[in-house]
């Protein structure tokens, strides 16, 4: 009996122990699963880095000293008086010397080299490289990382890119036994326990780097015993699955180091850009120490708000590193003498381009799975031009700032898409008035009525029938009325509410007359107009209603850009692209996005259209460009919609194409026409960034003929009212007006005689 009782007691105990062991085991397995699934998923691997276009340097390249200085500054170059190591540059008047660190591009390795150049009149006048190269690329600016699930633009770093002194200081200050413990420090726990018992609660932590990392990922910041236990078990498990360098790399990329408005700064890579405006690898010892100092309290030690506190903490970091024999004392002493050295807060935080990254992400998603992008450390090379982006940002915010001050209740918004003609490269995007913050990307997502921006498609459809329509064909602008299939009368009105009678075809486009355009479009045939819009590159389907001719179609700014891209490229369709190539770590090219061109329109029809669109900027609705951009010849079209809800301008020069939209998210009236709103922003961007006038080369089958500007009859250069217009051979008007008399006629006769001999 006694034995049975004893046996019974033993069995109960055994069961209790067994049960708790099972519970603990299940808990551990669960935690283990959590760690393995998330840590091996995206967090522990390096996401893709997105690069801007590289700056190409060669003799004759368009470049100013100030732009080069901005570019070098963004790339983290230090301006010195003697070139000693890569990442340094000297600017001396118009002479610049650069020591590049070299870079692996998708097609080639650009080696580290010393470059000397002289800049004159906005061009590289002379270029000399120590290896004899005539054409060199600077390394491209990293503009963000692809984190599809988080929509963050972090700059993740690999451990090899992290300066060794930074790693040493971090370990000295936060966890000096990091390389010897197995996730938790027993000594630390014992010390903390004693302190906690003394104070009667749980207040002191003794976290290893591993524990801090676990805490950052999974756990709330409350101080309870269960949380502490969970943290310890998970830390042990992490150590079991990952190497010390993987853990350190994870920590360096994860730890919270500051707050930039709504954006949390995680990781040393982004923090380096945020505080110092340069990559982590380019930081001096004192700057590295400041980042380590921020680990303990990014807000408390904020170098802008609390500089004295930050300096004290930074020097403490340096002292501890010396104490722990992880830093030479003379190096530390030197570093302690230096000021905080943080960049201007506004400069640092403006270096984010969420709208462009948004486009990159969407284009990548056609070819890549989210997991691959966030984990494989790919290098993504884009056409992004930070200099153009910065100009576009300032142009838009200046313009919107001006209008806002007049009427605060109307929240005016805007979107901008800038591309390169011929190549279809998208070089800058603004999705809203504040280019820095991600949010509603109007350039890619705001479908708005395009109004008169549609008119070039109507006129192009006409010019594709050269036997019937030339630029000098008289068309009628009297009141126009059409009975629609639904039984309603459609009677569009001109913006100035006037009729303009008969006028030359090109003038109807230049002045954006609605009555003439509606009549022209509906007599050509709506199916033809719709077909032209599709051939220009708009993929979206829309019904062929009579009002299509006046732009009663909702399109995205990026779709409008595609349409005008084709016009700017002489009728060749090229899909708009942000990405050039995707490269795996190590340099293997994964995907390239080759240039595609497809001729969709006859060169002579496009040539005539471009001539008419140049007239828009010379004598039509955009003639203010004559004094806004006196030195640049451009083609474009204004667009305004009913009640002035949308203000558009789309146009191009020889080296740039841009679409600008201004409007309100609630679709309320802006009080702006295309020319009083969007055109100003457009002109400002082109004034800053475009250097080449439109190059509208007449095809061989086009002749220039003088015609009367009111009747379109053939005329002569010396006649009053005569203007030159291009015609496709065989469609020129006969010369009906003659006004040469006397001597000039005789001279002409001799001229012809000489020519014939």
């Amino acid at each position, binding site marked *: 009996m006694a034995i049975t009782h004893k046996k019974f007691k033993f069995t109960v105990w055994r069961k209790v122990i067994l049960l708790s062991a099972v519970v603990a085991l299940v808990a551990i397995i669960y935690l283990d699963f959590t760690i393995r699934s998330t840590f091996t998923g995206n967090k522990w691997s390096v996401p893709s880095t997105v690069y801007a*276009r590289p700056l*190409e340097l*060669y*003799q*004759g*390249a368009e470049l100013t000293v100030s732009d080069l200085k901005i570019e070098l500054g963004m790339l983290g170059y230090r301006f010195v008086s003697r070139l000693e190591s890569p990442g340094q540059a000297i600017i001396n008047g118009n002479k610049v010397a650069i020591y590049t660190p070299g870079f692996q591009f998708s*097609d*080639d390795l650009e080696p580290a080299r010393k470059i000397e150049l002289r800049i004159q009149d906005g061009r590289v006048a002379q*270029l000399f490289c120590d290896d004899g190269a*005539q*054409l060199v690329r600077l390394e491209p600016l990293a503009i963000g990382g692809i984190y599809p699930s988080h929509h963050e633009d972090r700059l993740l770093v690999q451990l090899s890119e992290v300066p060794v002194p930074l790693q040493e200081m971090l370990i000295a200050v936060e966890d000096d036994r990091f390389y010897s413990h197995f996730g938790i420090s027993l000594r630390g726990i014992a010390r903390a326990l004693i302190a906690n018992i003394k104070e009667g609660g749980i207040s002191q932590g003794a976290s290893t780097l591993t524990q801090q990392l676990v805490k950052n990922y999974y756990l709330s910041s409350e101080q309870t015993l269960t949380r502490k236990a969970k943290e310890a078990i998970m830390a042990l498990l992490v150590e079991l699955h990952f190497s010390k360098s993987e853990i350190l790399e994870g920590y360096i990329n994860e730890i919270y180091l500051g707050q930039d408005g709504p954006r949390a700064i995680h990781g040393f890579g982004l923090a380096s850009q945020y505080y110092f405006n340069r990559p982590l690898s380019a930081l001096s010892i004192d700057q590295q120490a400041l980042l380590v100092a921020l680990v303990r309290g990014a807000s408390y030690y904020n170098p802008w708000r609390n500089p004295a506190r930050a300096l004290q903490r930074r020097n403490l970091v340096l002292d501890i590193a010396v104490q722990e024999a992880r830093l030479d004392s003379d190096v530390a002493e030197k570093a302690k003498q230096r000021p905080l050295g943080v960049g201007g807060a506004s400069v640092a935080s403006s270096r984010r381009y969420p709208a462009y990254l948004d486009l990159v992400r969407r284009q990548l998603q056609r070819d890549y799975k989210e997991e691959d992008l966030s984990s494989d450390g790919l290098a993504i090379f884009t*056409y992004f031009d930070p200099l153009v982006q910065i100009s576009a940002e300032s142009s838009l915010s200046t313009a919107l700032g001006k209008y806002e001050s007049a009427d605060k209740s109307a929240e005016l918004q805007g979107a901008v898409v800038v591309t*390169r*003609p*011929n*190549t279809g*490269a998208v070089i800058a995007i603004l999705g809203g008035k504040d280019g820095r913050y991600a949010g509603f990307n109007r350039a890619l997502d705001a479908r708005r009525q395009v109004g008169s921006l549609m008119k070039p498609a109507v006129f192009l459809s006409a010019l594709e029938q050269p036997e019937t329509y030339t630029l000098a064909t008289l068309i009628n602008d009297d009141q126009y009325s059409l009975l629609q299939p639904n039984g309603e009368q459609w009677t569009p009105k001109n913006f100035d509410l006037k009729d303009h009678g008969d006028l030359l075809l090109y003038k109807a486009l230049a002045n954006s007359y609605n009555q003439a355009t509606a009549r022209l479009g509906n007599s050509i045939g709506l199916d033809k107009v719709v077909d032209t819009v599709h051939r220009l590159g708009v993929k979206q389907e829309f019904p062929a209603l009579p009002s299509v001719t006046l732009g009663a179609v909702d399109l995205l700014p990026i779709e409008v850009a595609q349409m005008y891209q084709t016009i700017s490229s*002489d*009728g*060749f369709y090229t899909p708009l692209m942000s990405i050039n*190539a995707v490269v795996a770590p190590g340099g293997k*090219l994964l995907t*390239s996005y*080759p*240039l*595609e*061109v*497809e*001729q969709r329109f006859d*060169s002579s029809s496009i040539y005539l259209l471009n*001539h008419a669109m*140049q*007239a828009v900027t*010379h*004598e039509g609705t955009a*003639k*203010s460009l*004559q*004094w*806004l951009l*006196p*030195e*640049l*010849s451009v083609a474009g079209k204004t667009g305004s919609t009913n009640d002035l809800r949308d203000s558009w301008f789309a146009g191009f020069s*020889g*080296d740039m194409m841009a679409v600008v939209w201004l409007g309100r998210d609630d679709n309320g009236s802006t009080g702006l026409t295309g020319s009083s709103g969007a055109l100003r922003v457009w002109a400002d961007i082109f004034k800053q960034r475009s*250097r*080449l*006038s439109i*190059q*509208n*080369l*007449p*095809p*061989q089958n086009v002749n*220039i003929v003088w015609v009367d*500007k009111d009747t379109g009859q053939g005329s002569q250069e010396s006649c009053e009212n005569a203007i*030159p*217009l*291009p015609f496709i051979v065989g469609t020129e008007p006969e010369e009906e007006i003659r006004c040469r008399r006397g001597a000039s006629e005789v001279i002409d006769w001799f001229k012809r005689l000489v020519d014939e001999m």
Partner: protein
Amino acid sequence: MSFVKKVTLLCVPWMLVACSTMPGKAPVEEVISPPITGEQEKPEVAPVVKPQQAPVDSVAKAPPALFSLLQRAQRQEQDGDNRAAASSLERAIRIAPRYPGSYYQLGELRYREGAYRKAASLAQKTLSLGAEGRLREQAKDLLNRAKAH
């Protein structure tokens, strides 16, 4: 002599011709610019767009440095690395997007790869950018060959 070598030789003369000219730009038209006296003021005489009369003067010249890139593309193709050759040529196009010669060379590359439609489009682009002289003849020839497939 191999086909590639022949093509290379054919290309040399127009390269030299282009090499001998400095980079320059020719604005297509004169702009009559009214004095800057205020946004609302209108010029007295409406300026007229003057069409360019001599197309030949406006064909884009390439900067001298571009030719090292075009030659590199040829070497890359000879070495059998078409992808590298194409990306060198595309880089050349990005540097000087209006220079017709780069499009032609890319067109020939696409033709030899059997991408005849792309080759034809690139030949058309070469012509549209005002290719002249020998390059014009070559581009026309490429267009005919590509269209024959």
